[in-house]
């Protein structure tokens, strides 16, 4: 239960919430050959259909250009490109584009615009007849929120009632291909934590391909992220980024260092996994 209003939240929690994001084990699949739309991936054999595949005569075909992931339970394709299609419980970074009477319209870098109702955005009672809700969020504000509802014809609702949901002040926004986000986060957050430690920046990563960065050394962080996006399908990327950011390790000790970097808890968690 969140007791404080989101916009009053301090930076205590920064850096931890990204670990909740799903990280795909892309590393081991990088050497696999690329599949094209219409190519057969595998026989179904009672397995679940994952993303970006379709079934025909008990055979599984690819829908998009990507790398196939076939395991005991599931068959799916990690696409090489594509837009962000909202899914429930995704954590995204959005920009307020419109202040309405009972909520806000949020641009979440997707073909579909989303709506943030007052009840989901603020924790206190708000009388919408008397109060202008732009005092909570105004046009141009950046928020870290959760997709709470997706209907059949893709009407999207987002919510601030989620761990880590907050308004983001200042900073810079970088947009990358949404399909490259798992690679930017890395296995159990390894890649993003590397960038955080080396640059000392506060970084929030939205599933929708929007990345918010604040810190003295943000140029280096942005460069690193764009490099990952460009070379996401190559091997040994973590080492390359490590080398690339090598000179700035000293920044980890100052500024926003407390919020960046892998915490002890997270490293223990990844060991357990």
């Amino acid at each position: 239960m969140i007791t404080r209003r989101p916009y009053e939240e301090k930076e205590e929690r920064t850096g931890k919430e990204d670990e909740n994001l799903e990280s795909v084990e892309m590393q081991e699949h990088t050497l696999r050959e690329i599949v094209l739309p219409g190519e057969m991936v595998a026989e179904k054999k009672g397995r679940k259909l994952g993303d970006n595949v379709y079934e025909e005569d008990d055979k599984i075909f690819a829908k998009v250009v990507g790398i196939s992931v076939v395991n005991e339970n599931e068959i799916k394709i990690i696409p090489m490109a594509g837009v962000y299609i909202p899914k429930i419980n995704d954590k995204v970074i959005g920009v307020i584009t419109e202040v309405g009477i009972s909520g806000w319209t949020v641009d979440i870098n997707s073909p579909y615009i989303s709506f943030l109702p007052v009840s989901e955005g603020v924790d206190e009672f708000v009388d919408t007849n008397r109060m202008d809700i732009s005092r909570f969020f105004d046009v141009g504000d950046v928020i870290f929120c959760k997709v709470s509802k997706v209907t059949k014809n893709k009407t999207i609702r987002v919510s601030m009632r989620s761990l880590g949901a907050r308004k983001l002040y200042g900073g810079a926004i970088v947009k990358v291909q949404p399909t490259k986000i798992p690679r930017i986060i890395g296995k159990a957050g390894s890649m993003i934590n590397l960038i955080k430690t080396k640059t000392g920046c506060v970084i929030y990563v939205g599933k929708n391909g929007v990345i918010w960065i604040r810190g003295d050394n943000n140029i280096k962080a942005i460069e690193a992220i764009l490099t990952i996006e460009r070379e996401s399908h190559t091997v040994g990327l973590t080492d390359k980024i490590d080398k690339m950011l090598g000179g700035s390790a000293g920044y980890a000790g100052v500024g926003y260092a407390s919020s960046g970097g892998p915490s002890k808890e997270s490293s223990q968690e990844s060991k357990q996994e």
Partner: protein
Amino acid sequence: MAKTEEKLIVNGKRLDGRAFADLRPVRMQVGVVERADGSAQVSFGNTEAIVSAYGPRKLFPRFMQEQDTGIIRYRYNMAAFSTSDRVQPGTSRRGIEISKVSRIAFEPVIFLEDFPVTTIDVFTEIIQADGSTRVTGINAASLALATAGIPMRNLITACSVGKVDGELVVDLNGQEDNNSDADVAIAMIVPKEKLTLLQMDGLLTKEELFKILDMGRDTCKKIYEMQKSAIKEAYKPKPEKTEKTEKEAKTEKEKNRKVKEER
């Protein structure tokens, strides 16, 4: 009936030296338009098309939106400088027709129902025209849509087959196209052997049409392999520049400079 007195087929070969079932030199490249979601440049001989694909993206005006499915907006356009006579820029009767049939060629393979209320935009620009422009555009659009990450059942492959001087030939060039007895444009899903576009202009017998469909299928199979390798080529890891090669390049540049100065 050939409109020119010049023979288009001499000694069993076409004017450019091709056999009846030969394609012109084909070049395919993806990712040529940096800002597009997906793009491709395809050339068959002198015919050259650049296609960029966008989407799925927001669709306005609102009355165009479909609540249960997405739509495709396909634009086929010939550049003013693409032929020897200047093409009047803007929409033309021919352009509207080709845009429509090309769009219909793609509708069966794109998972439009996954993206309600949105649009997928395809812009085909023919920058140089020398026959078979619509099929070149469709081949390029297929690559552009695939690299844009748009979910598709399969790639679409297209080719043209025609009757020139009483002989059935594949991939007509401009001269053959203008003087042909008949011209058939074919687009198909190659692994399924299903047609998504079949247009005929001119006169053919029933037997000839069936022969043309067979030739078209065989040609599409060749083009399909080229399309697949064009996409795979784009995602191959490129060899990194090492310091040595950079140094070598520098020394080469210096050498070239010296040579120039001497001259």
